[in-house]
């Protein structure tokens, strides 16, 4: 890969512990524009924890984050958003009692005269983006608790895409989806990649990783086993890294 320029994101030597357990132990990863980097590992390997340090949900105990080569202070989700980092959480992080538009704009509402919410404008914008992402989506005026898993997922994705993200974190974005919707997400990832976004993809499905990712980082017990260029290795190599922690020759 010709990833010679300044990385979009570089997380250097990140460590975070919860009550003496090292959830993430001196891990370094990077991400370039237009690249999809897969994060793999068992449940509890520390993938989500690592990525939450980037999205501002957790604060790392040690280590540094660089965005476009300069040191970034990310202390909370708002900081992360200011660096154009958007996250699709595994839990989707939707407020079930609010409708799609309210969720999409949560924390970044469109306000009109006198600082009052402009709900109509937000709904209109939501209709626009949903028409692109999920043309079958019709339920704009009901709480998202009334939506199907796939519809909820598309709201969460719309929220991440709408605000011109440069760095996108997707934590198992297809876990709740049927085959057709999974295909839609795959196409979306390809499209966003073409637009020059950098994407971290946490994924359990090896085939999805092989299809979508440029590089894969494998973690085990909080540590990084290795990083591979996906087109240089086989499924078995990656599985060996995940299960045995065995680093193939091509890995760095």
């Amino acid at each position, binding site marked *: 890969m010709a990833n010679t320029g300044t990385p979009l994101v570089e997380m250097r030597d990140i460590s975070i512990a919860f009550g003496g357990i090292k959830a993430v132990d001196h891990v370094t990863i990077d991400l370039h524009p237009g690249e999809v980097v897969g994060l793999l590992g068992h449940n509890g390997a520390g993938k989500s924890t690592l990525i939450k340090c980037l999205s501002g949900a957790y604060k790392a105990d040690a280590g540094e984050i660089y965005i476009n080569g300069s040191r970034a202070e990310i202390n909370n*989700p708002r900081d992360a958003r200011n660096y154009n980092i958007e996250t699709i959480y595994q839990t989707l992080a939707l407020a079930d*009692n*609010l409708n799609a538009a309210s969720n999409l704009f949560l924390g970044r509402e469109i306000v009109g005269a006198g600082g009052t*919410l402009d709900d109509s404008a937000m709904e209109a914008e939501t209709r626009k983006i949903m028409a692109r992402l999920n043309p079958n989506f019709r339920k704009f005026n009901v709480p998202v608790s009334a939506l199907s898993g796939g519809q909820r997922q598309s709201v969460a994705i719309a929220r991440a895409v709408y605000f011109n993200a440069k760095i996108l974190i997707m934590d198992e974005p297809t876990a709740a989806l049927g085959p057709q919707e999974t295909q839609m997400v795959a196409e979306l990832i390809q499209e966003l990649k073409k637009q020059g976004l950098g994407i971290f993809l946490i994924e359990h499905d090896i085939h999805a990783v092989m299809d979508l990712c440029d590089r894969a980082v494998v973690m085990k017990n909080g540590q990084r086993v290795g990083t591979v260029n996906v087109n240089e290795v086989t499924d078995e190599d990656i599985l060996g890294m995940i299960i045995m922690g065995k680093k193939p020759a091509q890995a760095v």
Partner: protein
Amino acid sequence: MTDTPTHAPQSTDAQPGPIARFIRDTELDTRMLGMVGALLMIWCVFHFYPIIANLLSGNGLNFGLGLFITPRNLWNLSVQTSMTGIMATGMVLVIITRNIDLSVGAIVGVTGMAMGIMQVNVLPPILGLGNPMIWIVSVLVGLILGALIGAFHGWLIAYRGIPSFIVTLGGMLVWRGFAFLSADGKTIAPMDTTFALLGGGPTGSVGAVGSWIVGALGCIAVLWILSAGRKSRRKHGFPLRPNWAETVLALLGCGAVIGSVLVVNAYTWPKGIVDAYVKANPDVVVPEGGLEISTGFAIPVLILIVVGILMTILMTRTRFGRYVFAIGGNPEAAALAGINTKWMTLKIFALMGMLAGLAAVISAARLNAATNALGTLDELYVIASAVVGGTSLAGGVGTIYGAIIGALVMQSLQTGMVLIGYGDGSYRMIAVGVALVLAVYLDNLYRQKTK
């Protein structure tokens, strides 16, 4: 189920009945309609109970026995509801964010005492008795003290991680204790004369002309809301309500406003107060048959209306309100969306405390005295009002108007029990307790059915 008779397939889905169509086109909240219906039913039961009881005991039909739906009772009801209603609007926010505030009654007590001491013992020697600044400073002291106490509770809850139930249970005891200590248990009276007007009463009301002005403003507001909503929908190409539905809504809204003006204006000053008024103003010409002075809206009721409007705007039209709902729906998601949930919790409790201070203003003014027992058990009626009004204890759901209607329902039950001769506290408590549980049960059924 072979023994069930087979019906022809009903076409209700394709062709909704007139009521369903009416509700669909007017977009009225069915839950609110249900609550208003229940309220009117309660009123009718209390009104007709003595009439029917009299008829059944063989004394004939006498409609004069119905006391509930009379201008006088409805006016009293409105004043009595204002204190609980004001606090219930704040409790909605607290409960939506999955918290509870058991300390509001005690905050009423301690802020009431603080305001009493300010205007009776502290300020008159400094400013001179009757200085118009006295009531203003006193009210501000009450509001600020209430807000500070609430903020302190909120800080303990949000930043120190103590459950709100415990913090405010402690607060209930602590602030009631301070209310007693502040004047060694003595009652402080009388209040400043301007301050006392805030409690309502015939002189603390705005009269016929004032009420018509309020009514006119109300009608203008109804029409403005409808037309602004229509304009906004047209701008974004959303479907409009049919014209007839807009007309019905305008008529219903303005009708309710004008109706309430007629009711409060039909309640005239009691004879004793008129006599005192005539004595104090010798140049008033008393017409034949006595002087009739319309009372109009009481000031505390106007305060409740203003608080209700402001709180509704806060909850539905501002980021603050949106965040309150988001925190209630999913606290974790709210935090991940960049909302400072701890700071929000602190602000919500501060607001609740300030509203308790405002309720204390009305309470002390109405009594024309500050006592350390002011607001005792109010927390329970306030929580009950919010819950009867549709606020879900699971969080995330609730409306301001619902809480105010809830307060009206609770107050109607209390007043009604007195009017039909069960004024003894024990019967009243039983009625209110049963109503609370029943209301929440019916609400559960409603929610399951509409899901």
